[in-house]
């Protein structure tokens, strides 16, 4: 099946002023290759600062990559000008992390959800009204007439995320980037939003790029999981498999660090990665995880950069612990 969105060796290096004369390069995304097929949900997990949001913004062409290709339905959009992206803007949409700042506080819910239609001159005003109300009903903000006339500050976090979803689906997109859509709302309502998104994915045939730092929700929500560390994808695979049998040492540590509600937790240390993620302006040489890796092999891991290779069917890892299955 041909991918809806394909990233080919994409990099995003931001210039960062360091002092008066020095300019460093923050390699937020550093050579990522990724494909998401039609109707699939791919979760991108990683610590904050690993480049998840940047990758999502690249795939939406809010940012232009410093190198590499971005293909949407086979069409290269990596160098297109904003003026040439009109068609793409109707097909790719986003749901944002912060329910408080993602809705314009001065606009009513109706105008917020209607905006995409207005921007793309779709329908007359009664038709637009019809579509907005239908969308609000779809995300279960009912009575929809009531919600339409409210302002964002009158809504709870969960309700705001539904408005975000309604707005994103207004133009009937094929591809949606959901950047931490539930990380700022209560645990008790997270699953409700994700289930809603799942249903809408089925009914609209959406391809979803789900960005999160919470591997637990990724497991329940996504078909495949990609793990990102310091601007690189270090592991990809079907979500159940990755969670049950993580291969990359970083994935293993990430999963071990997640607590479960268990009374015996308090009696033992939680396993955690030593140290902190380095800054993207000073990425360690060779395997970028090696300063924190418990399987570190001197002479190898700090010399050769491990490529992302398929070690089992559908499972890719970038680590010297796993020999290339094809090379064998």
């Amino acid at each position, binding site marked *: 099946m041909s991918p809806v969105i394909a990233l080919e060796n994409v990099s995003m290096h931001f210039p960062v002023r360091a002092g008066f004369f020095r300019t460093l390069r923050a390699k937020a995304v550093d050579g990522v290759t990724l494909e998401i097929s039609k109707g699939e949900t791919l979760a991108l997990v990683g*610590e*904050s600062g690993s480049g998840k949001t940047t990758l999502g913004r690249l795939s939406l062409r809010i940012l232009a990559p410093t190198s590499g290709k971005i293909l949407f339905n086979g069409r290269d959009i990596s160098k297109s000008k904003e003026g040439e992206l009109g068609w793409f803007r109707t097909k790719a949409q986003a749901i944002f992390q912060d329910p408080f700042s993602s809705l314009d506080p001065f606009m009513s819910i109706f105008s917020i959800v209607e905006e995409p239609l207005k921007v793309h001159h779709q329908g007359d005003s009664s038709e637009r009204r019809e579509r907005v109300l239908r969308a609000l009903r779809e995300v279960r903000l009912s009575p929809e007439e009531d919600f339409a006339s409210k302002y964002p500050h009158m809504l*709870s*976090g*969960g*309700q705001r995320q539904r408005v975000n979803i309604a707005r994103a689906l207004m133009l009937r997109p094929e591809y949606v980037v959901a950047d931490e859509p539930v990380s700022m*709302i*209560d*645990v*008790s*309502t*997270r*699953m*409700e939003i994700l*289930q809603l998104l799942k249903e809408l994915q089925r009914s609209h045939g959406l391809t979803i790029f789900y960005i999160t*730092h*919470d*591997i*637990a*929700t990724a*497991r*329940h929500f996504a078909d495949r999981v990609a793990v990102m560390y310091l601007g690189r994808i270090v592991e990809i695979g079907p979500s159940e498999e990755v*969670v049950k049998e993580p291969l990359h040492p970083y994935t293993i*540590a*990430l*999963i071990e*660090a*997640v*607590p*479960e*509600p*268990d*009374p015996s*937790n*308090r009696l033992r*240390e*939680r*396993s*955690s*990665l030593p140290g*902190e993620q380095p800054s993207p302006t000073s990425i360690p040489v060779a395997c970028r995880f090696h300063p924190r890796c418990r399987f570190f092999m001197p002479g190898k891991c700090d010399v050769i950069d491990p490529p992302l290779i398929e070690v089992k069917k559908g499972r890719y890892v970038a680590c010297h612990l796993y020999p290339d299955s094809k090379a064998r």
Partner: protein
Amino acid sequence: MAILEVDSLRLYYSTERGPVRAVDDVSFTIGEGEALGVVGESGCGKTSLASALMRLLPRNLASYSGSVKLDGEELMRLSDEEFRSRVRWKKMAMVFQGAMNSLNPVLRVGFQVAEPLIASGGSGEEAKRTARELLHQVGLPPEVYGRFPNELSGGMKQRAVIAMSLVLSPALLILDEPTSALDVSVQAQVMNLLKRLKRERKISALFITHDIALASDICDRFAVLYSGQIVELGDADDILIHPKHPYTQKLLSSTPRLRSESEPEFIPGVPPDLVNPPSGCRFRPRCPYAFEPCTRDPPIYSLSASQASRCWLHQSPP
């Protein structure tokens, strides 16, 4: 012996729409060296409970009453001045929600850690030494002392804030969402630090969070807060393994898990408005078990020596 005994604590805010009953008749105790987890959804009054204990009251206060005994001493009878000079920070310290973002950007971290000590009359040299020692204890390298907050990562700032709260060796530490802005792995490091401090310094703690899984990492007992009231109180085992109140059960089952097969659920609807909470049981509009008696206020049923729950379901059949 309980270090903190709270009885019928109330804290209402006044607003144009009427009083916000943020803390509404809350009673609990914390034993020596014990950590009590206060869990509940956003807006249920967790931070308000902490401010009521620390007597950090907003200007739009509508009412503030009840009894708070720390080490057997009734705090509600102290004047503001006495409370400030004898209790706050000295016996009871707090790590505020988002505190790491409220560090003063123009002061060196070390000075900020030492500040409470200097403010309470300690000598500068001694304060400096204590601050260095504390920074070391929370696992920060010595050079952090002379750094500015923006030169530190989130996890380091959070450690510094914890060090700051410990500087006057309080007996009770209130931690309001101390790790919610941090990543899992950094969160794990900070939680391990807190566990160590609890063990080594025998500190009692009130740990506030909306994430029951995170709370299970440190808490010996739990108070489940809903709409300004405690709906269930019990030991970690009681609450995490045998939750009795429908809200606690729902809260647990909505936590996504990595190591079990169960699909997480969710609690439909939104938490109630604290100005006009539903009559009777406040959880009624969202409760799957709601039945006829629930239109009246449920009493608190003691289910065992350690567990109590506020729900009509525990009423023994007549």
